[in-house]
């Protein structure tokens, strides 16, 4: 990290399944309010719960959290939550595209899709973080970030309620770091 310039990264992408809500909340509550990258969060949602997920996450977050509209620009210091029932893609010009195509790994939004589009568009300038989850969605996306030389962090399976997601990622490649939620917060605050 040492020799990478200020504002090197274009975004941080975080993925987890429905159960990772409390971890994401914790991370966003712990992150400093002057954080200078956009954060994209893709969480699996329980079907047919018209959730207060956005409200819930916003409650404690130090950064504003919003569900992007199609072709919105991403801005530093904002958190973008993938809207329910849409896949969220990152485009080359730092805008978002939405899609309603078929579920992937039983999921829409799919973490793989968001992650792999971020790695296609930003190549090494992306930080991928995969959290606790009960599904392998996200592992392939993380692997792609890794292959394009982005920075990868997997939540320590020992700190996960359900470790299927992190373990699926660890089976595919060796990430730059394996961290606890507190470790992730510290890492982000030192970027």
């Amino acid at each position: 990290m040492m020799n990478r310039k200020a504002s090197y990264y274009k975004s941080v992408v975080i993925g987890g399944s429905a159960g990772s809500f409390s971890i994401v909340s914790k991370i966003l509550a712990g992150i400093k309010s002057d954080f200078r990258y956009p954060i994209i969060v893709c969480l699996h949602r329980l079907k047919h719960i018209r959730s207060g997920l956005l409200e819930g996450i916003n409650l404690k977050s130090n950064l504003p959290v919003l569900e992007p509209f199609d072709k919105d620009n991403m801005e530093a210091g904002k958190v973008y939550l993938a809207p329910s029932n849409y896949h969220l893609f990152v485009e080359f010009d730092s805008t978002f595209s939405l899609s309603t195509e078929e579920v992937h790994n039983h999921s829409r939004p799919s973490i793989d899709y968001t992650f792999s589009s971020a790695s296609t568009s930003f190549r090494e300038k992306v930080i991928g973080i995969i959290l606790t989850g009960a599904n392998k969605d996200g592992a392939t996306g993380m692997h792609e970030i890794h292959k394009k030389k982005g920075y990868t962090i997997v939540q320590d399976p020992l700190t996960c309620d359900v470790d299927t997601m992190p373990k699926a990622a660890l089976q595919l490649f060796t990430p730059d770091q394996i961290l606890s939620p507190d470790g992730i917060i510290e890492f982000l605050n030192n970027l």
Partner: protein
Amino acid sequence: MGNLTFKTYLEELKKHTPYNFCEYSDNSIQRRIDKVLKDHKMTLEDLLHLTRTDEAFVENLVDEITVNTTELFRNMETWEHLYTKVFPNLKSKKNINIWHAGCSTGQEVYSNLILFNELGLLDKVKVVATDINQKVISNAKKAEYLYSAHQSSIQDYNEFIKKYNSNAHTFEHYCDMEKNTDKFVFKDFLKKKVGYMRHDLVSQDIPFYQKFDVIFCRNVLIYFNPELQMRIVRKFFDKLYDGGVLILGNHEALHGFFKTRFIRSGMVYTKSSTFQFKYK
């Protein structure tokens, strides 16, 4: 040809066929093409060869590239808004012209017709529905669907309509259930209201002379890049009466110039007449 990219492929597709996907959103069109390559176990070079030589293959390709997912009463809150706030304003009109652009397999069209019938306005309604994909247009015409795939939307509709009118027809009034199968088909009095047509928003002019009171274009523009979106929205703007409405999908927005030419309420964008139009 070793370094053929999906962009140059799209240029070739445009040159050799009526189809132009060059200005679709990069990431999603690229992934759709990758999916085609994977499904057919072919290279981009193979794909290009077939594109140049095999017309039937190209038609099938359009079906594979386009995203046709749809639902009955998709995003119920939008339909609720239309039923309570928007459509009742059309009562005084002699005719109500409606266009569904990118109608896919027709669920959106029949959802809408049901609401107009519930408002007692079905007789005034003239509906056209278009899509680039010939296959989905044929299916929309058939109006035949699987009950199990639509069950939860049907329940949502029945709950919604009873909330506003305890004498309302339930969904079952509008279709015939096929005995011993999972299929249902919409009744003729709805089906015959719709003129379906294959039409490409990108490379063809709008094929209608009349203007519209309501244009649905939901979850179609998300597949286009911002410049293309703008060009298509301009066409819609020109084809709407003053006070007419454009209905977009749940997380779509108008950007740039047209943001100021429509008044937004939820996903419903009302064309503001040039006379009323003032900067605040």
